[in-house]
Protein backbone atom coordinates (compact mmCIF):
# COMPACT_ATOMS: atom_id res chain seq x y z
CA UNK A 1 0.00 0.00 0.00
CA UNK A 2 2.81 2.33 0.92
CA UNK A 3 4.38 1.92 -2.48
CA UNK A 4 1.09 2.71 -4.14
CA UNK A 5 0.93 5.96 -2.22
CA UNK A 6 4.47 6.77 -3.26
CA UNK A 7 3.59 6.06 -6.84
CA UNK A 8 0.55 8.29 -6.77
CA UNK A 9 2.55 11.11 -5.19
CA UNK A 10 5.22 10.73 -7.85
CA UNK A 11 2.62 10.82 -10.59
CA UNK A 12 1.05 13.92 -9.13
CA UNK A 13 4.42 15.65 -8.97
CA UNK A 14 5.13 14.73 -12.57
CA UNK A 15 1.69 15.78 -13.68
CA UNK A 16 2.19 19.12 -11.96
CA UNK A 17 5.06 19.91 -14.28
CA UNK A 18 2.84 19.85 -17.32
CA UNK A 19 1.11 23.21 -17.10
CA UNK A 20 -0.64 25.03 -19.90
CA UNK A 21 0.37 28.59 -20.62
CA UNK A 22 -2.78 30.58 -20.12
CA UNK A 23 -1.57 33.85 -21.65
CA UNK A 24 -3.87 35.11 -24.39
CA UNK A 25 -1.20 37.09 -26.19
CA UNK A 26 2.56 36.75 -26.00
CA UNK A 27 4.82 39.49 -27.33
CA UNK A 28 8.48 38.68 -27.71
CA UNK A 29 11.52 40.36 -29.18
CA UNK A 30 13.54 43.56 -29.10
CA UNK A 31 14.56 44.70 -25.64
CA UNK A 32 14.35 48.26 -27.00
CA UNK A 33 10.64 47.93 -27.70
CA UNK A 34 10.06 45.94 -24.51
CA UNK A 35 9.50 48.87 -22.10
CA UNK A 36 6.78 50.31 -24.38
CA UNK A 37 5.04 46.99 -24.77
CA UNK A 38 5.32 46.13 -21.07
CA UNK A 39 3.81 49.41 -19.95
CA UNK A 40 1.14 49.30 -22.66
CA UNK A 41 0.20 45.73 -21.73
CA UNK A 42 -0.23 46.78 -18.08
CA UNK A 43 -2.61 49.64 -18.84
CA UNK A 44 -4.34 47.61 -21.55
CA UNK A 45 -4.97 44.79 -19.08
CA UNK A 46 -6.54 47.12 -16.53
CA UNK A 47 -9.02 48.16 -19.23
CA UNK A 48 -9.49 44.59 -20.44
CA UNK A 49 -9.15 42.47 -17.29
CA UNK A 50 -10.01 39.25 -19.13
CA UNK A 51 -7.04 39.54 -21.48
CA UNK A 52 -3.68 38.40 -20.24
CA UNK A 53 -0.55 39.52 -22.07
CA UNK A 54 2.93 38.10 -21.59
CA UNK A 55 5.97 40.15 -22.61
CA UNK A 56 9.32 38.51 -23.27
CA UNK A 57 12.66 39.96 -24.38
CA UNK A 58 15.21 38.06 -26.39
CA UNK A 59 16.13 40.55 -29.10
CA UNK A 60 14.68 41.50 -32.48
CA UNK A 61 15.91 38.34 -34.21
CA UNK A 62 14.24 36.13 -31.63
CA UNK A 63 10.98 38.06 -31.84
CA UNK A 64 10.87 37.85 -35.63
CA UNK A 65 11.73 34.14 -35.59
CA UNK A 66 9.11 33.36 -32.99
CA UNK A 67 6.31 35.22 -34.69
CA UNK A 68 7.25 33.58 -38.01
CA UNK A 69 7.10 30.18 -36.31
CA UNK A 70 3.76 31.13 -34.81
CA UNK A 71 4.93 30.57 -31.22
CA UNK A 72 4.08 34.16 -30.20
CA UNK A 73 1.28 36.48 -31.32
CA UNK A 74 3.36 39.60 -31.86
CA UNK A 75 7.07 40.01 -32.43
CA UNK A 76 8.78 43.26 -31.48
CA UNK A 77 11.65 44.49 -33.60
CA UNK A 78 13.89 47.52 -33.65
CA UNK A 79 14.98 46.88 -37.22
CA UNK A 80 13.36 46.09 -40.53
CA UNK A 81 13.12 42.48 -41.65
CA UNK A 82 16.21 41.16 -43.39
CA UNK A 83 15.84 39.57 -46.84
CA UNK A 84 16.41 36.17 -45.21
CA UNK A 85 13.63 36.76 -42.70
CA UNK A 86 11.29 37.94 -45.44
CA UNK A 87 11.78 34.72 -47.41
CA UNK A 88 11.34 32.66 -44.27
CA UNK A 89 8.16 34.47 -43.29
CA UNK A 90 6.60 35.98 -46.42
CA UNK A 91 3.32 36.70 -44.62
CA UNK A 92 4.84 38.83 -41.83
CA UNK A 93 3.28 42.28 -41.48
CA UNK A 94 5.17 45.12 -39.80
CA UNK A 95 3.48 48.06 -38.07
CA UNK A 96 5.50 51.12 -37.03
CA UNK A 97 4.64 52.05 -33.45
CA UNK A 98 7.38 54.45 -32.38
CA UNK A 99 10.60 56.16 -33.46
CA UNK A 100 13.82 55.39 -31.67
CA UNK A 101 16.97 57.35 -31.83
CA UNK A 102 20.49 56.22 -30.98
CA UNK A 103 22.62 58.50 -28.87
CA UNK A 104 26.41 58.31 -28.71
CA UNK A 105 27.23 58.45 -25.02
CA UNK A 106 30.30 59.08 -22.89
CA UNK A 107 31.00 59.39 -19.20
CA UNK A 108 29.74 62.73 -17.77
CA UNK A 109 33.31 63.64 -16.76
CA UNK A 110 34.33 63.62 -20.44
CA UNK A 111 34.57 67.17 -21.84
CA UNK A 112 33.70 66.18 -25.42
CA UNK A 113 30.36 67.67 -26.49
CA UNK A 114 30.16 67.40 -30.24
CA UNK A 115 31.53 65.05 -32.89
CA UNK A 116 31.04 64.59 -36.59
CA UNK A 117 29.72 61.29 -37.92
CA UNK A 118 33.16 60.73 -39.48
CA UNK A 119 34.84 61.20 -36.09
CA UNK A 120 32.46 58.71 -34.48
CA UNK A 121 33.25 56.25 -37.25
CA UNK A 122 37.01 56.71 -36.77
CA UNK A 123 36.65 56.30 -33.02
CA UNK A 124 34.69 53.06 -33.33
CA UNK A 125 36.91 51.65 -36.07
CA UNK A 126 39.89 52.11 -33.76
CA UNK A 127 41.62 54.74 -35.91
CA UNK A 128 41.29 57.34 -33.15
CA UNK A 129 42.56 55.87 -29.89
CA UNK A 130 42.62 58.88 -27.55
CA UNK A 131 40.05 61.56 -26.82
CA UNK A 132 42.66 64.30 -27.24
CA UNK A 133 42.67 63.58 -31.00
CA UNK A 134 39.09 64.92 -31.18
CA UNK A 135 39.58 67.81 -28.77
CA UNK A 136 38.87 65.97 -25.54
CA UNK A 137 40.94 65.06 -22.49
CA UNK A 138 44.07 62.89 -22.72
CA UNK A 139 42.40 59.54 -22.05
CA UNK A 140 42.49 56.22 -23.88
CA UNK A 141 39.22 55.38 -25.64
CA UNK A 142 37.36 52.27 -24.48
CA UNK A 143 34.70 51.24 -27.00
CA UNK A 144 31.49 49.65 -25.77
CA UNK A 145 29.11 48.04 -28.25
CA UNK A 146 26.16 45.65 -28.32
CA UNK A 147 26.51 41.97 -29.14
CA UNK A 148 26.38 40.71 -32.73
CA UNK A 149 22.77 40.50 -33.90
CA UNK A 150 21.42 43.25 -31.63
CA UNK A 151 18.99 45.60 -33.37
CA UNK A 152 20.68 48.64 -31.87
CA UNK A 153 24.04 47.39 -33.08
CA UNK A 154 22.85 46.74 -36.62
CA UNK A 155 21.34 50.23 -36.69
CA UNK A 156 24.60 51.76 -35.45
CA UNK A 157 26.64 49.77 -37.95
CA UNK A 158 24.52 50.65 -40.96
CA UNK A 159 24.03 54.32 -40.05
CA UNK A 160 27.44 55.19 -38.65
CA UNK A 161 29.99 52.62 -39.71
CA UNK A 162 28.81 51.82 -43.25
CA UNK A 163 31.38 49.42 -44.71
CA UNK A 164 33.95 50.00 -41.97
CA UNK A 165 34.14 47.38 -39.20
CA UNK A 166 33.94 48.26 -35.52
CA UNK A 167 37.34 47.63 -33.90
CA UNK A 168 37.68 44.11 -32.53
CA UNK A 169 38.86 45.64 -29.25
CA UNK A 170 35.34 46.86 -28.37
CA UNK A 171 33.71 45.50 -25.24
CA UNK A 172 30.43 43.75 -26.03
CA UNK A 173 27.39 44.11 -23.78
CA UNK A 174 24.22 42.06 -23.96
CA UNK A 175 21.82 44.97 -23.30
CA UNK A 176 21.54 48.76 -23.56
CA UNK A 177 21.30 49.01 -19.77
CA UNK A 178 24.64 47.22 -19.51
CA UNK A 179 26.22 49.74 -21.88
CA UNK A 180 24.86 52.60 -19.79
CA UNK A 181 26.23 50.95 -16.64
CA UNK A 182 29.68 50.52 -18.18
CA UNK A 183 29.86 54.05 -19.60
CA UNK A 184 28.61 55.54 -16.32
CA UNK A 185 31.31 53.67 -14.42
CA UNK A 186 34.30 54.16 -16.71
CA UNK A 187 35.61 57.62 -17.61
CA UNK A 188 37.31 56.18 -20.73
CA UNK A 189 34.24 54.56 -22.21
CA UNK A 190 32.18 55.56 -25.24
CA UNK A 191 29.13 53.63 -26.39
CA UNK A 192 25.73 53.95 -27.98
CA UNK A 193 22.24 53.44 -26.53
CA UNK A 194 18.67 54.08 -27.58
CA UNK A 195 17.48 57.57 -26.59
CA UNK A 196 15.14 55.85 -24.10
CA UNK A 197 18.15 54.80 -22.05
CA UNK A 198 19.58 58.30 -21.59
CA UNK A 199 19.76 59.55 -18.01
CA UNK A 200 22.01 61.65 -15.81
CA UNK A 201 24.59 58.91 -15.35
CA UNK A 202 25.81 59.27 -18.95
CA UNK A 203 26.29 62.15 -21.38
CA UNK A 204 24.91 62.19 -24.93
CA UNK A 205 27.16 63.66 -27.63
CA UNK A 206 25.62 65.87 -30.28
CA UNK A 207 26.39 65.01 -33.89
CA UNK A 208 27.29 67.75 -36.36
CA UNK A 209 25.91 70.22 -33.81
CA UNK A 210 22.50 68.54 -33.29
CA UNK A 211 21.73 66.93 -29.98
CA UNK A 212 19.61 63.78 -29.93
CA UNK A 213 16.16 65.19 -29.07
CA UNK A 214 12.66 64.98 -30.48
CA UNK A 215 12.80 68.13 -32.57
CA UNK A 216 16.10 67.25 -34.21
CA UNK A 217 14.91 63.70 -34.94
CA UNK A 218 11.68 64.91 -36.54
CA UNK A 219 13.30 67.46 -38.80
CA UNK A 220 15.98 64.84 -39.62
CA UNK A 221 18.78 67.09 -38.43
CA UNK A 222 19.95 64.40 -36.01
CA UNK A 223 21.06 61.55 -38.24
CA UNK A 224 20.63 58.43 -36.09
CA UNK A 225 16.97 57.49 -35.79
CA UNK A 226 14.93 54.43 -36.69
CA UNK A 227 11.38 53.13 -36.57
CA UNK A 228 10.27 50.50 -34.05
CA UNK A 229 7.96 47.76 -35.25
CA UNK A 230 5.44 45.29 -33.99
CA UNK A 231 5.27 42.30 -36.30
CA UNK A 232 2.37 39.92 -36.84
CA UNK A 233 1.81 36.92 -39.05
CA UNK A 234 -0.64 38.25 -41.66
CA UNK A 235 -2.71 41.38 -40.98
CA UNK A 236 -3.23 41.79 -37.22
CA UNK A 237 -6.59 40.52 -36.02
CA UNK A 238 -8.41 39.79 -32.76
CA UNK A 239 -6.48 40.63 -29.61
CA UNK A 240 -3.29 41.39 -31.55
CA UNK A 241 -5.10 44.01 -33.65
CA UNK A 242 -6.79 45.49 -30.62
CA UNK A 243 -3.49 45.76 -28.75
CA UNK A 244 -1.58 47.30 -31.68
CA UNK A 245 -4.43 49.77 -32.17
CA UNK A 246 -4.12 50.64 -28.50
CA UNK A 247 -0.42 51.46 -28.85
CA UNK A 248 -1.20 53.62 -31.89
CA UNK A 249 -3.94 55.47 -29.98
CA UNK A 250 -3.14 58.81 -28.27
CA UNK A 251 -3.01 57.01 -24.94
CA UNK A 252 -0.58 54.40 -26.28
CA UNK A 253 1.59 57.07 -27.90
CA UNK A 254 1.80 58.85 -24.55
CA UNK A 255 3.32 55.65 -23.20
CA UNK A 256 5.78 55.69 -26.10
CA UNK A 257 6.82 59.19 -25.11
CA UNK A 258 6.88 58.38 -21.42
CA UNK A 259 9.26 55.49 -22.05
CA UNK A 260 11.69 57.85 -23.75
CA UNK A 261 10.89 57.22 -27.40
CA UNK A 262 9.41 59.50 -30.01
CA UNK A 263 5.74 59.36 -31.10
CA UNK A 264 5.13 58.39 -34.69
CA UNK A 265 3.17 61.62 -35.16
CA UNK A 266 3.79 64.87 -33.21
Amino acid at each position, binding site marked *: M*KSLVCFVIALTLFGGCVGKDSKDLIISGSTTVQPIVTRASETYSTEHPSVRIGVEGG*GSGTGINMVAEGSVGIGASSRELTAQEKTKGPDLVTTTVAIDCIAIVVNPSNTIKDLTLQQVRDIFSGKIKNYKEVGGPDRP*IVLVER*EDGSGTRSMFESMVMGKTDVS*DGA*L*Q*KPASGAIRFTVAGNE*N*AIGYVGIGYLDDSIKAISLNGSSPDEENVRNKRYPLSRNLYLITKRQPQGISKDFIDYILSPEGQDIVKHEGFIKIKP
Partner: protein
Amino acid sequence: MGRFEPEKMVGRVLMLFSITAVVVLLLIMLFIFNAGLPLFTKVGVLDFLFGTRWVPSKDVYGAFQFIVAAFMVTFGALLIAVPLGLSCAIFLSEIAPRWAKNIVRPAIELLAGIPSIIYGVFALVIIVNAAHITFNLATGETILAASIILSIMVLPIIISISQDAIEAVPRLYREGSYAMGATDWQTIHRVLLPAASQGIVAGVILGMGRAIGETMAVVLVIGNVEKFPTGFLVPGETLTSAILLEMGEAVVNSLHYRALFCLGIVPFVFVLVLSVLSSRLISRNHERFE
Protein backbone atom coordinates in the same frame (compact mmCIF):
# COMPACT_ATOMS: atom_id res chain seq x y z
CA MET B 1 0.08 -13.49 -12.23
CA GLY B 2 2.42 -13.09 -9.31
CA ARG B 3 1.52 -11.66 -5.98
CA PHE B 4 1.54 -7.85 -5.62
CA GLU B 5 4.99 -7.11 -4.26
CA PRO B 6 5.37 -3.56 -2.98
CA GLU B 7 9.12 -3.85 -2.47
CA LYS B 8 9.80 -4.73 -6.08
CA MET B 9 7.45 -2.09 -7.34
CA VAL B 10 9.15 0.71 -5.41
CA GLY B 11 12.47 -0.53 -6.66
CA ARG B 12 11.30 -0.41 -10.25
CA VAL B 13 9.80 3.05 -9.97
CA LEU B 14 12.98 4.42 -8.44
CA MET B 15 15.04 2.75 -11.13
CA LEU B 16 12.82 4.30 -13.78
CA PHE B 17 13.43 7.72 -12.29
CA SER B 18 17.16 7.27 -12.12
CA ILE B 19 17.30 6.06 -15.68
CA THR B 20 15.46 9.25 -16.67
CA ALA B 21 18.55 11.24 -15.69
CA VAL B 22 20.72 9.15 -17.99
CA VAL B 23 18.21 9.39 -20.81
CA VAL B 24 18.02 13.16 -20.43
CA LEU B 25 21.81 13.40 -20.58
CA LEU B 26 21.87 11.29 -23.74
CA LEU B 27 19.11 13.37 -25.31
CA ILE B 28 20.93 16.60 -24.52
CA MET B 29 24.11 15.18 -26.03
CA LEU B 30 22.24 14.04 -29.10
CA PHE B 31 20.60 17.44 -29.46
CA ILE B 32 23.79 19.46 -29.06
CA PHE B 33 25.78 17.30 -31.44
CA ASN B 34 22.94 17.14 -33.92
CA ALA B 35 22.56 20.92 -33.90
CA GLY B 36 26.28 21.67 -33.93
CA LEU B 37 28.12 19.12 -36.01
CA PRO B 38 26.56 20.00 -39.43
CA LEU B 39 28.70 23.15 -39.19
CA PHE B 40 31.65 21.06 -40.26
CA THR B 41 30.19 20.39 -43.69
CA LYS B 42 30.83 24.09 -44.40
CA VAL B 43 33.63 25.02 -42.00
CA GLY B 44 36.72 22.89 -41.43
CA VAL B 45 37.22 21.42 -37.97
CA LEU B 46 40.72 22.89 -37.78
CA ASP B 47 39.50 26.28 -39.02
CA PHE B 48 36.94 26.23 -36.23
CA LEU B 49 39.27 25.08 -33.45
CA PHE B 50 42.32 27.13 -34.44
CA GLY B 51 40.91 30.04 -36.43
CA THR B 52 41.03 33.37 -34.60
CA ARG B 53 38.44 35.35 -36.52
CA TRP B 54 34.76 35.13 -35.52
CA VAL B 55 32.54 37.13 -37.89
CA PRO B 56 29.05 35.60 -38.01
CA SER B 57 27.83 38.13 -40.58
CA LYS B 58 30.47 36.82 -43.01
CA ASP B 59 30.12 33.19 -41.90
CA VAL B 60 33.67 33.07 -40.56
CA TYR B 61 33.80 30.95 -37.42
CA GLY B 62 37.19 30.62 -35.74
CA ALA B 63 36.85 29.87 -32.04
CA PHE B 64 40.48 29.68 -30.92
CA GLN B 65 40.36 32.98 -29.01
CA PHE B 66 37.25 31.80 -27.11
CA ILE B 67 38.91 28.48 -26.25
CA VAL B 68 42.11 30.17 -25.09
CA ALA B 69 40.19 32.75 -23.04
CA ALA B 70 38.09 30.02 -21.41
CA PHE B 71 41.19 28.09 -20.40
CA MET B 72 42.98 31.23 -19.19
CA VAL B 73 40.01 32.16 -17.03
CA THR B 74 39.78 28.61 -15.69
CA PHE B 75 43.46 28.18 -14.88
CA GLY B 76 43.65 31.68 -13.46
CA ALA B 77 40.79 30.78 -11.15
CA LEU B 78 42.48 27.54 -10.08
CA LEU B 79 45.76 29.34 -9.46
CA ILE B 80 43.96 31.41 -6.85
CA ALA B 81 41.49 28.83 -5.56
CA VAL B 82 43.73 25.78 -5.12
CA PRO B 83 46.15 27.21 -2.53
CA LEU B 84 43.31 28.94 -0.69
CA GLY B 85 40.99 25.95 -0.84
CA LEU B 86 43.62 23.43 0.15
CA SER B 87 44.74 25.50 3.13
CA CYS B 88 41.15 25.86 4.19
CA ALA B 89 40.57 22.10 3.86
CA ILE B 90 43.66 21.34 5.94
CA PHE B 91 42.56 23.83 8.56
CA LEU B 92 39.06 22.39 8.73
CA SER B 93 40.07 18.75 8.87
CA GLU B 94 43.18 18.93 11.08
CA ILE B 95 43.50 22.15 12.98
CA ALA B 96 40.18 23.89 13.52
CA PRO B 97 38.49 23.53 16.89
CA ARG B 98 34.92 22.30 16.77
CA TRP B 99 33.33 25.76 17.10
CA ALA B 100 35.36 27.16 14.21
CA LYS B 101 34.38 24.18 12.08
CA ASN B 102 30.75 24.79 12.93
CA ILE B 103 30.97 28.31 11.57
CA VAL B 104 33.27 27.87 8.58
CA ARG B 105 31.78 24.73 7.06
CA PRO B 106 28.18 26.05 6.77
CA ALA B 107 29.50 29.37 5.49
CA ILE B 108 31.34 27.58 2.70
CA GLU B 109 28.26 25.55 1.85
CA LEU B 110 26.28 28.78 1.68
CA LEU B 111 28.89 30.17 -0.71
CA ALA B 112 28.08 27.29 -3.04
CA GLY B 113 24.39 28.17 -3.00
CA ILE B 114 24.66 31.79 -4.11
CA PRO B 115 23.31 32.23 -7.66
CA SER B 116 26.02 33.02 -10.18
CA ILE B 117 24.35 36.24 -11.33
CA ILE B 118 24.84 37.61 -7.80
CA TYR B 119 28.56 36.79 -8.00
CA GLY B 120 28.59 38.50 -11.38
CA VAL B 121 27.02 41.72 -10.19
CA PHE B 122 29.31 41.78 -7.15
CA ALA B 123 32.32 41.31 -9.41
CA LEU B 124 31.12 43.94 -11.87
CA VAL B 125 30.78 46.56 -9.16
CA ILE B 126 33.73 45.67 -6.91
CA ILE B 127 36.36 43.57 -8.68
CA VAL B 128 36.15 45.32 -12.07
CA ASN B 129 36.58 48.72 -10.48
CA ALA B 130 39.36 47.45 -8.25
CA ALA B 131 41.22 46.09 -11.28
CA HIS B 132 40.57 49.33 -13.19
CA ILE B 133 42.15 51.42 -10.44
CA THR B 134 44.85 49.04 -9.18
CA PHE B 135 46.41 48.30 -12.54
CA ASN B 136 45.58 51.71 -14.06
CA LEU B 137 43.85 50.04 -17.01
CA ALA B 138 41.58 51.62 -19.61
CA THR B 139 38.93 49.19 -18.41
CA GLY B 140 38.79 46.79 -15.47
CA GLU B 141 36.75 44.26 -17.42
CA THR B 142 39.49 41.71 -17.83
CA ILE B 143 40.27 38.01 -17.79
CA LEU B 144 41.78 38.60 -14.35
CA ALA B 145 38.46 39.90 -12.98
CA ALA B 146 36.70 36.81 -14.31
CA SER B 147 39.38 34.55 -12.80
CA ILE B 148 39.02 36.16 -9.39
CA ILE B 149 35.25 35.81 -9.22
CA LEU B 150 35.43 32.24 -10.56
CA SER B 151 38.01 31.33 -7.94
CA ILE B 152 35.53 32.31 -5.24
CA MET B 153 32.85 30.25 -6.95
CA VAL B 154 34.93 27.06 -7.16
CA LEU B 155 36.31 27.35 -3.61
CA PRO B 156 33.41 25.43 -2.00
CA ILE B 157 33.91 22.47 -4.35
CA ILE B 158 37.66 22.29 -3.78
CA ILE B 159 37.35 22.76 -0.03
CA SER B 160 34.64 20.21 0.64
CA ILE B 161 36.09 17.46 -1.56
CA SER B 162 39.65 17.99 -0.30
CA GLN B 163 38.44 18.03 3.29
CA ASP B 164 36.60 14.76 2.78
CA ALA B 165 39.71 13.27 1.21
CA ILE B 166 41.95 14.35 4.08
CA GLU B 167 39.51 13.15 6.70
CA ALA B 168 39.27 9.79 4.92
CA VAL B 169 42.96 9.12 5.68
CA PRO B 170 42.89 6.46 8.44
CA ARG B 171 43.76 7.42 12.00
CA LEU B 172 46.57 4.89 11.91
CA TYR B 173 48.58 7.05 9.49
CA ARG B 174 48.37 10.06 11.77
CA GLU B 175 49.22 8.14 14.91
CA GLY B 176 52.10 6.39 13.19
CA SER B 177 53.50 9.72 12.12
CA TYR B 178 53.17 11.33 15.56
CA ALA B 179 54.66 8.21 17.17
CA MET B 180 57.79 8.75 15.13
CA GLY B 181 58.11 12.22 16.56
CA ALA B 182 56.77 14.17 13.56
CA THR B 183 55.30 17.60 14.20
CA ASP B 184 51.78 18.59 13.11
CA TRP B 185 53.08 20.27 9.98
CA GLN B 186 55.33 17.34 9.08
CA THR B 187 52.39 15.00 9.51
CA ILE B 188 50.20 17.14 7.29
CA HIS B 189 52.51 17.69 4.39
CA ARG B 190 54.49 14.44 4.47
CA VAL B 191 51.74 11.98 5.37
CA LEU B 192 48.22 13.32 5.02
CA LEU B 193 48.52 15.34 1.79
CA PRO B 194 50.27 12.57 -0.17
CA ALA B 195 47.77 10.03 1.15
CA ALA B 196 44.80 12.21 0.17
CA SER B 197 46.34 13.49 -3.05
CA GLN B 198 44.00 11.69 -5.42
CA GLY B 199 40.91 13.00 -3.67
CA ILE B 200 42.35 16.50 -3.70
CA VAL B 201 43.12 16.29 -7.41
CA ALA B 202 39.56 15.10 -7.98
CA GLY B 203 38.25 18.19 -6.17
CA VAL B 204 40.43 20.44 -8.28
CA ILE B 205 39.22 18.75 -11.46
CA LEU B 206 35.58 19.17 -10.47
CA GLY B 207 36.27 22.83 -9.71
CA MET B 208 37.82 23.15 -13.13
CA GLY B 209 34.67 21.77 -14.74
CA ARG B 210 32.59 24.27 -12.84
CA ALA B 211 34.85 27.13 -13.86
CA ILE B 212 34.94 26.38 -17.57
CA GLY B 213 31.17 26.06 -17.77
CA GLU B 214 30.29 29.13 -15.73
CA THR B 215 28.61 31.73 -17.91
CA MET B 216 26.60 34.40 -16.15
CA ALA B 217 29.22 35.73 -13.76
CA VAL B 218 31.88 35.67 -16.47
CA VAL B 219 29.89 37.41 -19.18
CA LEU B 220 29.31 40.38 -16.89
CA VAL B 221 32.95 41.04 -16.06
CA ILE B 222 35.12 39.77 -18.90
CA GLY B 223 34.29 42.56 -21.37
CA ASN B 224 33.49 40.20 -24.26
CA VAL B 225 36.06 41.18 -26.84
CA GLU B 226 36.51 38.75 -29.70
CA LYS B 227 40.21 39.43 -29.88
CA PHE B 228 42.92 36.94 -29.05
CA PRO B 229 43.72 37.48 -25.35
CA THR B 230 47.31 38.61 -24.90
CA GLY B 231 47.43 38.44 -21.11
CA PHE B 232 45.35 38.45 -17.97
CA LEU B 233 44.86 42.24 -17.91
CA VAL B 234 42.96 42.47 -21.20
CA PRO B 235 39.30 41.74 -21.90
CA GLY B 236 38.37 38.48 -23.57
CA GLU B 237 35.39 36.35 -24.41
CA THR B 238 34.90 32.75 -23.32
CA LEU B 239 33.08 29.93 -25.12
CA THR B 240 30.03 30.16 -22.94
CA SER B 241 29.80 33.95 -22.96
CA ALA B 242 29.85 33.92 -26.77
CA ILE B 243 26.90 31.52 -26.73
CA LEU B 244 24.99 33.64 -24.25
CA LEU B 245 25.58 36.86 -26.17
CA GLU B 246 24.75 35.59 -29.63
CA MET B 247 22.22 32.76 -29.27
CA GLY B 248 19.26 35.12 -28.94
CA GLU B 249 19.93 36.60 -32.34
CA ALA B 250 21.09 33.59 -34.32
CA VAL B 251 18.57 32.37 -36.87
CA VAL B 252 17.58 28.80 -36.00
CA ASN B 253 19.48 26.22 -38.10
CA SER B 254 21.67 28.87 -39.70
CA LEU B 255 25.42 28.35 -39.80
CA HIS B 256 25.78 30.84 -36.96
CA TYR B 257 23.38 28.80 -34.81
CA ARG B 258 25.33 25.62 -35.51
CA ALA B 259 28.62 27.34 -34.76
CA LEU B 260 27.28 28.41 -31.36
CA PHE B 261 26.33 24.82 -30.57
CA CYS B 262 29.82 23.76 -31.56
CA LEU B 263 31.14 26.32 -29.07
CA GLY B 264 29.03 24.44 -26.52
CA ILE B 265 30.42 21.04 -27.54
CA VAL B 266 33.95 22.09 -26.58
CA PRO B 267 33.33 22.65 -22.82
CA PHE B 268 30.79 19.80 -22.84
CA VAL B 269 33.37 17.26 -23.99
CA PHE B 270 35.95 18.79 -21.68
CA VAL B 271 33.68 18.57 -18.64
CA LEU B 272 32.67 15.02 -19.58
CA VAL B 273 36.31 13.92 -19.62
CA LEU B 274 37.01 15.79 -16.39
CA SER B 275 34.13 14.26 -14.48
CA VAL B 276 34.96 10.72 -15.58
CA LEU B 277 38.54 11.37 -14.51
CA SER B 278 37.56 12.79 -11.14
CA SER B 279 35.04 10.09 -10.28
CA ARG B 280 37.72 7.46 -10.96
CA LEU B 281 40.15 9.33 -8.74
CA ILE B 282 37.61 9.69 -5.93
CA SER B 283 36.72 6.00 -5.94
CA ARG B 284 40.38 5.04 -6.04
CA ASN B 285 41.00 7.31 -3.08
CA HIS B 286 38.35 5.43 -1.12
CA GLU B 287 39.60 2.00 -2.17
CA ARG B 288 43.07 2.77 -0.91
CA PHE B 289 41.95 2.95 2.68
CA GLU B 290 39.59 0.00 2.71
